[in-house]
């Protein structure tokens, strides 16, 4: 139900009268029109998380690596312990 899928913004369209922001999003090849009204900061090339036709957040590329960074740190810490 709360499924949300990351996709890349390919184009953006603003509709002033209704204060709507729409965009075409590429999901690994499949394209879909999505409402971007809740991600005013997002621009073409950004990845957004899409839920029932709405982008609910921008994916932060640097933070996306956090889990792998902490895994590496854990690994290094363990290796150092092994050397002691």
């Amino acid at each position, binding site marked *: *139900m*709360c499924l949300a899928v990351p996709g890349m913004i390919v184009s953006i369209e603003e509709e002033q009268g*209704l204060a709507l922001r729409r965009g075409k999003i590429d999901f690994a090849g499949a394209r879909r029109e999505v409402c971007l009204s809740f991600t005013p900061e997002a621009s073409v090339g950004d*990845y957004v998380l899409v839920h029932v036709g*709405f982008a*609910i*957040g921008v*994916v932060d590329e640097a933070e*996306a690596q956090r*889990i792998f960074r902490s895994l590496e740190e854990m690994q290094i810490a363990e290796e150092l312990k092994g050397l002691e």
Partner: protein
Amino acid sequence: MKFVDEYRDARAADRLSHAIRRITRHPWSIMEVCGGQTHTIVKSGLEDRLPPEITLIHGPGCPVCVTPMELIDKAIAVAMRPEVIFCSFGDMLRVPGSSRNLLSAKALGADVRILYSPLDALKLARRNPERQVVFFAVGFETTAPANATAVWQAEREGLENFSLLVAHVLVPPAMAAILDSPDRRVNAFLAAGHVCAIMGYREYEPLVERYRVPIVVTGFEPLDLLDGVFMAVAQLEEGRAEVENQYSRVVRRDGNLPAQERIAEVFEVGPREWRGIGAIPSSGLKLRGRYRGFDAEERFPTAEPPAEQPGDCIAGLVLQGIRRPRDCPAFGNRCTPENPLGAPMVSSEGACAAYYLYRGRSENTWTGI
């Protein structure tokens, strides 16, 4: 797919499982709140990667599962009206009402349609001015901005043949209700990442303080969940209770402010009945005054007798993590996804259906093996 496949890496999962084993000293029960997370856990066999001291409890986090039977009956009564086009997300169609579900109402002639987005319901309303289009607005905070926007836009366009049957539920009050329960077994929570993408995680700070329970905002891929468990166990073993954010690639502390503004413009908080759990104060959303004309319950008043739960179903206990699906005598025999007795057997995010579908054979969702 970028931002998906890398979080299914089997080798990284091994390292995380190893790290969890290394720090675990005591038995702990950790509840994942969201049904989407339950689905990932059961499908990818994550429980087999955890030390025996760690028990994952599957929480009430499936809006489909907690929609009360009375509201399903109401949905069916509205859908049966000849002028109505009744629209819903697909999951809702097989949820049992007191005597039938929406799918069988469709077989009886009701115009019931499955849509991907509430905006598609608006399109239907514009194209069919002589019909009444009703959208079944089910969901957590994740879905509320989308449903709010449909009403907001209908109001601005003066679209008079569109309305919402609102069944929105809010997550933090349900977590508080679980923590208040005398049967409480939960030592820590993995909070639902997509709910927090909208709402942020300030709301959890008072819960952590009041109940001294660690809450880790967690994503939906297998590595996210293992990482969330690692962070929760680290807090428990160190005697800490804090809100931590595992899903920092999407979730910020304040959440998505424009989305929150849209929710607050259209909806207000009210009491809500949770199927299997009962009434929880301030745990639901209803349309605010200016938008009340779009409330399908007011537009199509129905008198439905109060519904009752089928006797065998222990969904309420399952949804609170007190019992497991396998403890239910009906599980897998009288109750299956084809013929569900209770809502957690309907949606693949419900704990009962997840166990039924992947029972004893987790699917290979891993990459890099």
